[in-house]
């Protein structure tokens, strides 16, 4: 049994599942994204070719990472960009704070960066007297609500417009009861414009870092990264070591698949390339490891670093759609969250938040073998003696039981009989958590074995 104090995935999912209509609504909203993605992918005859190139290009880069990171740093220096290296989140935060403190920064505008979430940067800076304003609308909504993101591309997907309306009424003074997305977005635009214009520094994540140019690429639909980085004189960019690509050609491949796979758009509204600071300004890039080199030491886990954070695997995942982003014990939810965050989950339940249906691997634009990685995590947990829910105690028994033909056949015929003659209400408790939200199966007339003997044997 796990000794953790946090709740398991199933436990937290149960909280989300209490409101059935919200679950349906959540699932549908994400499925809509999946459908848009399918249309966008289907309209490109070369889609599969792009996935293949994307995958091979990322693998190539990951297996030459040292070389490309050094090349990137050298070229950044030529472009007057300052480069910093951080082993972990703590070091990342310290570096950022040092830069900000040196420039006497009081207000930082930030554009979506899952990496800074991963490092828990906001509270770190806020404790040191720096106001951090998330500027992506979804990010700003959850920041005002005091919540973490529940999706990596649409972070406030779990909130209804009425809830956003109430929140904005409270925090931004919009009309009470107003819930029109256009009205609310305009209010946020006005509010955030003042923030951009009064900020002392801007920080963004990095979608791609181009080694041979010493440039970073930042993609947004709202233009928040660009309003941020191009107004104050000080701009910071945080990137994981996995964000490197060799050249502009390879960045172009990913720019073709990123938005199509995320929201079904042919490209994000803005794809901006920064190859140096603005006139009289300063540009810093912080390169962060935070566990990535460890993942590279495992052949299977390493492939998770091919991820370009499009969110496609979340949108298609039957478990994510029905359990919500907050049920995962990691900043990044869904299949990719399980792949990169399972080691951090002290309840050891994340790898089981998956049906192994493989839909995620199928949609991934860089062919991250998510189901394989998740399965591998189960093995790693088992080998470490960390199976959740007491699986450690009963799984060996299940193994023995399944291995014995007589025991299995005999109990299965009992089960078939029971399913036929006993009422469901009597049987359901025996199915445990599995049967909670499922109907019991209709019992077949005979066992597969008997059927096989009769028809094929």
């Amino acid at each position: 049994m796990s000794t953790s104090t946090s709740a398991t995935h199933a436990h937290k999912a149960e909280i989300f599942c209490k409101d059935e209509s919200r679950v349906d609504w959540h699932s549908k909203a994400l499925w809509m994204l999946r459908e848009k993605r399918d249309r966008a992918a289907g309209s490109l005859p070369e889609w599969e070719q792009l996935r293949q190139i994307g995958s091979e290009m990322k693998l190539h880069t990951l297996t030459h990472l040292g070389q490309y990171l050094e090349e990137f740093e050298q070229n950044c220096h030529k472009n007057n960009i300052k480069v910093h290296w951080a082993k972990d989140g703590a070091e990342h935060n310290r570096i950022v704070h040092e830069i900000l403190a040196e420039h006497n920064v009081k207000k930082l505008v930030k554009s979506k960066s899952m990496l800074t979430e991963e490092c828990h940067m906001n509270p770190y800076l806020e404790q040191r007297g720096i106001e951090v304003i998330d500027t992506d609308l979804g990010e700003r909504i959850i920041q005002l609500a005091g919540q973490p993101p529940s999706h990596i591309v649409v972070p406030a997907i779990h909130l209804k417009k009425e809830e956003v309306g109430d929140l904005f009424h409270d925090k931004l003074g919009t009309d009470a009861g107003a819930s029109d997305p256009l009205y609310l977005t305009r209010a946020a635009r006005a509010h955030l414009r003042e923030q951009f214009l009064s900020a002392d520094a801007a920080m963004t994540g990095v979608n791609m870092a181009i080694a041979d140019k010493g440039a970073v690429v930042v993609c947004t639909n709202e233009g928040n990264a660009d309003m941020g980085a191009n107004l104050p004189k000080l701009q910071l960019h945080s990137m994981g070591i996995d964000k490197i690509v060799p050249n502009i050609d390879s960045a172009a491949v990913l720019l073709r698949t990123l938005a199509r796979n995320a929201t079904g758009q042919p490209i994000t509204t803005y794809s901006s390339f920064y190859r140096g600071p603005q006139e009289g300004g300063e540009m810093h890039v912080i390169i962060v490891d935070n566990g990535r080199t460890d993942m590279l030491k495992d052949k299977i886990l390493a492939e998770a670093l091919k991820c370009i954070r499009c969110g496609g695997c979340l949108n298609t995942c039957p478990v994510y759609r029905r359990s919500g982003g907050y049920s995962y014990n990691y900043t990044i939810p869904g299949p990719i969250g399980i792949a990169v965050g399972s080691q951090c989950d002290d309840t050891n339940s994340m790898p089981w938040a998956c049906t192994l249906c493989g839909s995620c691997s199928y949609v991934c634009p860089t062919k991250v073998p998510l189901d394989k990685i998740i399965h591998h995590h189960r093995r790693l947990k088992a080998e470490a003696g960390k199976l959740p829910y007491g699986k450690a105690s009963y799984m060996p028994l299940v193994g023995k039981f399944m291995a014995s033909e007589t025991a299995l056949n005999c109990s299965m015929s009992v089960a078939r009989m029971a399913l036929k003659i006993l009422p469901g209400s009597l049987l359901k408790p025996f199915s445990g958590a599995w049967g909670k939200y499922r109907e019991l199966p209709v019992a077949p007339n005979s066992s597969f074995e008997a059927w096989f003997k009769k028809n094929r044997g």
Partner: protein
Amino acid sequence: MSSKHDILNALKSAAIAPQAMPVIKVAPRIDDLVGQFEASLNTVAGTLHREGGLAKLQAQVDEQIAQGMQIISMLDGIKGNREVTDTAHQLRDIDYAVIPGDLGVAENGAIWVNNKNLGHRVTPFICENLFLVLEAKTIVANMHQAASKLTLDSGEFGTFIAGPSKTADIEQALVVGAHGACSLNVYLV
């Protein structure tokens, strides 16, 4: 310095054998590039003006000026009523910006804009509305072709702009006009 050393060192024990860089060779769709570009631009909520060129744009600009709008033009041949400001922040009241685009991409409607033509880098984002001007002959089929053509010298900033800014963060309802320009009109010359 030591963290850099540690990270590079740790990378030496990576488990996957070195993989070769794939050849990026994707067949472009070269039929009716302008038509493709127009269709793509529509899907990203932008509007293309195929006919009329600079004269049509200048007429549009004049009309806006007559209505009291603040217009900055970064394009020789189009006259606005505002000059490049001392600081980027002073652009906050710009209603329209006229900016030349370097190249257009048929597959997605994106237009590459380079900071040589922006005055301040923030110009195409801070204006309420954006007019981009594009030479028809600069339209390429896809991002691979765009990548081989775009210029981004040391110290520069460049951006692909595909439509007006937008968001769907509130219940997935598409709203045009987030932080950047609220509309995009592209004039073909």
